[in-house]
């Protein structure tokens, strides 16, 4: 049951366009909901504005229909799909994600976005997409944006706790895919495995995953001399840059993950500072 004070996608988007503003919070329609793994779901949402404005690394806020749990739940956009749809992939970890997993096609969900400053994919290069678990979704979008670009190659290296739930989607978008589960190692194992094939002049690492993983990837990149872009997580109060809750320490000061990021160059991040203590999954 949902009695919503917010207005439908199309109206908000029209109103914002008329006023020359960004579209604010709005109610959009869920178009698909499919399990990819135990407690991991793939959800599609129809929202024309998002479908037209979804840079790789950008995320959206979803909001619970139960106003007792009012804070934003941020999720990386994993793909743009035909019919003005976007896709997210999420794990059920609490109240909000549980509620979202119960949504059915045709039902409504409130959202805000696109949010954040994404990956820099300007350069033609060999992109190494290094992802862990629920950090894979923004890399899928990166792969989608890079697909078919001339002078570009893509290799995905994915680490999972157990089931390799994102391999099928990612595999269809990249030139090469290697994945591993906890039992056999981690993405550093994969990086070491492919390191022989890397053209260090042409390679750019994009990474997203649990903080310890990204820390290890950043260290590996530094050691190897490769540029790396890290897509960070942080507990958010607004997701659009107003509350200063989500900061991370960088050589340029305490920056907002939601607006200055979530993507930061690995060599700008201060990995052990207080500002990045929270462990993302």
């Amino acid at each position, binding site marked *: 049951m949902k*009695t919503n*004070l*917010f*207005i439908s996608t199309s*109206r908000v988007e029209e*109103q*914002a366009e*008329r*006023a020359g*503003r*960004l579209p*604010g*919070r709005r109610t959009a329609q869920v178009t698909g909901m499919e399990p990819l793994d135990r407690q991991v779901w793939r959800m599609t949402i129809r929202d024309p504005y998002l479908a037209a404005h979804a840079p790789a690394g950008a995320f959206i806020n979803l*909001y619970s229909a139960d*106003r*007792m*749990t*009012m*804070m*934003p739940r941020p999720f990386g956009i994993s793909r743009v799909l035909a019919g003005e749809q976007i896709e997210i992939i999420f794990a059920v970890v609490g109240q909000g994600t549980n509620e979202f997993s119960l949504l059915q096609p045709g039902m409504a969900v409130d959202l*805000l976005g696109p949010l954040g400053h994404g990956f820099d994919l300007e350069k033609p290069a060999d992109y190494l997409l290094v992802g862990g678990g629920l950090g894979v979704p923004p890399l899928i979008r990166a792969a989608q944006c890079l697909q078919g670009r001339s002078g570009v190659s893509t290799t995905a290296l994915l680490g999972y706790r157990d089931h390799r739930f994102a391999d099928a989607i990612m595999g269809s978008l990249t030139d090469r895919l290697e994945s591993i589960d906890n039992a056999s190692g981690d993405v550093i194992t994969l990086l070491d495995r492919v390191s022989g094939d890397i053209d260090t002049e042409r390679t750019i690492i994009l990474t997203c995953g649990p903080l310890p993983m990204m820390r290890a990837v950043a260290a590996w990149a530094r050691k190897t001399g490769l540029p790396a872009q890290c897509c960070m997580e*942080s*507990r*958010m*109060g*607004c997701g*659009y*840059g*107003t*509350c*200063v*809750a*989500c*900061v*991370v320490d960088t050589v340029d000061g*305490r920056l907002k993950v939601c*607006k200055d990021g979530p993507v930061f160059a690995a060599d700008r991040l201060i990995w052990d500072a*207080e*500002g*990045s*203590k*929270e462990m993302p999954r």
Partner: protein
Amino acid sequence: MSQRTIAEMQTAIAMDPLEPHVWRHGTVVAGTPWKNPVGTASGTFNLDACGGYYDVSQMGAISTKGVSPVPWEGNPTPRTAESPAGMVNSVGLQNPGVDHYLVDELPRLKALGATVVTNVAGHSDEDYAIVVERLADSPADMLEINVSCPNVSHGGMSVGTDAKALNRLITRLRGLTDKPMVVKLTPNVTDIVEVARAAVDGGADALSLINTLVGMRIDINTGKPILAQGTGGVSGPCILPIALSFVWRVRQALPDIPIIGIGGIDSGRTALEFLYAGANAVEVGAAALVDPVAPMRVARELDDLLDERPDLAELLKKGKCWR
């Protein structure tokens, strides 16, 4: 947020909060005219973030993030935790300092035509004095002295809970500026009236209340607080009834002081409750964090509600309040 009938909901749905609008019901706070009685609450407005979503000059006023004499780093993260119908934050006044504010956010806001309430933070009387002096001949329309932040270890709430210390501070600041000076009060006190009086006696032109209530959440998987800082400040709809009673009690005791009501406002209707409790204006805080356009929507809804309440609207226009 309660008592919205279908018809009213349809109005809300039909309303375009971004459409150009001629405000019918303004207010006056300590001599400063506001286009409408709805401002943004300090710490929940950032020009770069909010300006994308609506025309910030159309708010009654913009209360900016607390500024300190020098840049402050704020607290470690995590800085927010959810709570039922609200949130707990321990941002700790991270801000780039008053010098940056004077060359960046303030002139840009004024250039847009906004009415600006500059929120002032400090760790000591000296800190507050420095900021107020620096702002004395700035284009800020009003100053809001934040003696109520629960997230800094010195200054902040410790001044706001001690009537004598507060009176001393406000008396000192009064000597430094002629700008309308709003003192922002904390609800974490036994006797709000005593503190309110101390501020007014010290020379406050207006009061704003409430700031956040001390609160926390615990992660049951670790047994430790979610916020790195342990405790933080609670805001959002959950504090609405508490905030209303603070405004009400101050209004009963001090019939003439202008009051900006704050706490849990998320609709024209909840804003209106504050006006009936005796506020001359209101500010929208946490609601803006979960819907960037919320402050503008609240202002538009209130403008409509005041159409049907000409007595109240008339009082506000004259700088008076409902009794």
